[in-house]
């Protein structure tokens, strides 16, 4: 691990100034995946700007939205009464991820910034465009069972592994950030970037920017469910997951949100499936027809074609759960 200096700002403004003064600095908060990356030599910060203790850990009711502080722990997200009442899929996704030890320290911002888990990214001696840009990708045509089928490019097929991002994508959250050029808001749909030719650029964050909160519109009137399929019952990344939130009124689906994990290089929303459901009366035939539309745009590798039928079945399962009257 490269040695670093630890800086402890007392305010957000000072933290941003410190980052601006040190181009190779990184913010540190929970420091879970980040410490892994530093041990592996993939992250080599010259300075760590420690933003714990700046009051960014609160979860608050802001009228139309629940504001998840950037440094609220995953444990807090899982158990907070406001989350459970208004945006329950946030809690469901967090509880399906990691372990209690990790959830106690991992944060909202760190969760959505976590790096991919493609084996070729972690193992030394393999080609990976996210690890070393421009070197190529050994995952394409390699061991790709766990890799993405949507949003891929020739440069990268790594899955965005977070569970939480599926809830935030389905709920149309907004990421509030601040940085050297001031504060701004990033719609969650635009936060994670498709790999394209520059897979090393993973988010819309500009250099030195800091996440302040993730604002989640209240989904109090919706029924939400997160269904995760993995190779062991606990503490495993998703082979595949589906998060859904729906409203049924007078026997018709009036609102539908669906996003899938374990399949996309970014959190994968399924607008074509949603469109096929809204206005219709819920039922098994409709669900199967709509779920079949989820295949649109899929690019299959050597070992991950199983994800297409599994995705359809998971969608049907979630639709059944969230439209029960």
């Amino acid at each position, binding site marked *: 691990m490269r040695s670093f200096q630890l800086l*402890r700002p007392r305010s957000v403004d*000072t933290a941003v100034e410190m980052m601006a003064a040190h181009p190779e600095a990184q913010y540190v908060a929970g420091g879970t995946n980040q410490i892994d990356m530093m041990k592996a030599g993939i992250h080599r910060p010259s*300075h760590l700007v420690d933003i714990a203790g700046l009051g960014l850990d609160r979860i608050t009711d802001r009228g139309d939205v629940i504001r998840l502080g950037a440094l609220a722990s995953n444990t807090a997200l899982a158990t907070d009464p406001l989350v459970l009442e208004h945006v329950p899929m946030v809690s469901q996704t967090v509880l399906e991820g990691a372990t*209690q030890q990790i959830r106690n320290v991992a944060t909202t911002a760190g969760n959505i910034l976590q790096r991919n888990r493609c084996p070729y990214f972690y193992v030394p001696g393999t080609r990976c465009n996210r690890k070393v840009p421009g070197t190529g990708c050994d995952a394409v045509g390699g061991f790709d069972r766990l890799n993405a089928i949507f949003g891929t490019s020739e440069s990268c097929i790594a899955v965005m592994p977070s569970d939480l991002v599926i809830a935030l994508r389905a709920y149309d959250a907004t990421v509030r950030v601040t940085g050297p050029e001031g504060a701004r808001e990033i719609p969650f749909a635009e936060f994670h970037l498709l790999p394209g030719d520059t897979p090393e650029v993973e988010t819309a964050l500009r250099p030195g920017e800091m996440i302040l909160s993730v604002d989640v519109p209240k989904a109090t009137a919706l029924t939400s469910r997160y269904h995760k399929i993995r190779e062991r019952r606990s503490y495993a990344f998703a082979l595949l997951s589906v998060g859904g939130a729906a409203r049924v009124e007078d026997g018709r689906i009036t609102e539908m949100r669906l996003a899938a994990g374990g399949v996309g290089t970014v959190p994968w929303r399924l607008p074509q499936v949603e469109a096929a459901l809204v206005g219709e009366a819920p039922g098994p035939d409709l669900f199967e027809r709509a779920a079949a539309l989820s295949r649109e745009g899929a690019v299959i590798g050597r070992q991950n074609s199983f994800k297409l039928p599994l995705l359809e079945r998971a969608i049907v399962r979630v639709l059944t759960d969230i439209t029960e009257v």
Partner: protein
Amino acid sequence: MSDETKASGVSRRGFLSGTAAGAAAIPLLTSEGHAQEIVPGDVGVAAIEMTLRVNGQTRRVRADIRASLLDVMRDRLELTGTKKGCDAGHCGACTISLNGERRLACLTLAVRHQGDEITTIEGLGTPGNLHPMQDAFVRHDAFQCGYCTPGQIMSAVACIETGNAGSRDQIKEFMSGNICRCGAFPNIVAAIEDVRDAGLVTEQGT
């Protein structure tokens, strides 16, 4: 940063001056009460002085700024009860309590946790006066090789204290971060149920 800092990696003075740039005070390097002598030894060029609160004692130590709490405790403070399994946050062998919450010491930078209350397996019970969870692990034969056991026990206590030991399934879910390669899981769960049912560890208010 000063030239001195560059030359020496991170000296204590460099460390302090680096933070002073941001008008930040480090409440960490002050000694409290009955701090022991600094543990001697070669700790490399990036050594700084740290003060840690472990098992109710204040310990002053020189250690590399990059050192995990796990390495500092094992290599510098001779607290080897906490085990290093994967060193990557996967196995749970290094589970400790930090301000009452269970944490993975391998992913915890020691330098960031000066002043926090750290409890390790050594702080839980003694050979002549076992903590009820340690006693239950013995009675239920909840281990074979024993390597994961300190982490299992630290995690098991927290599992009950946080109210996540209501059912067998809940215990299994909330203990999933502690892996036992010997496969003693059924006996570990039984030990936790036993301690819970006897009221020897109880849910703590949050």
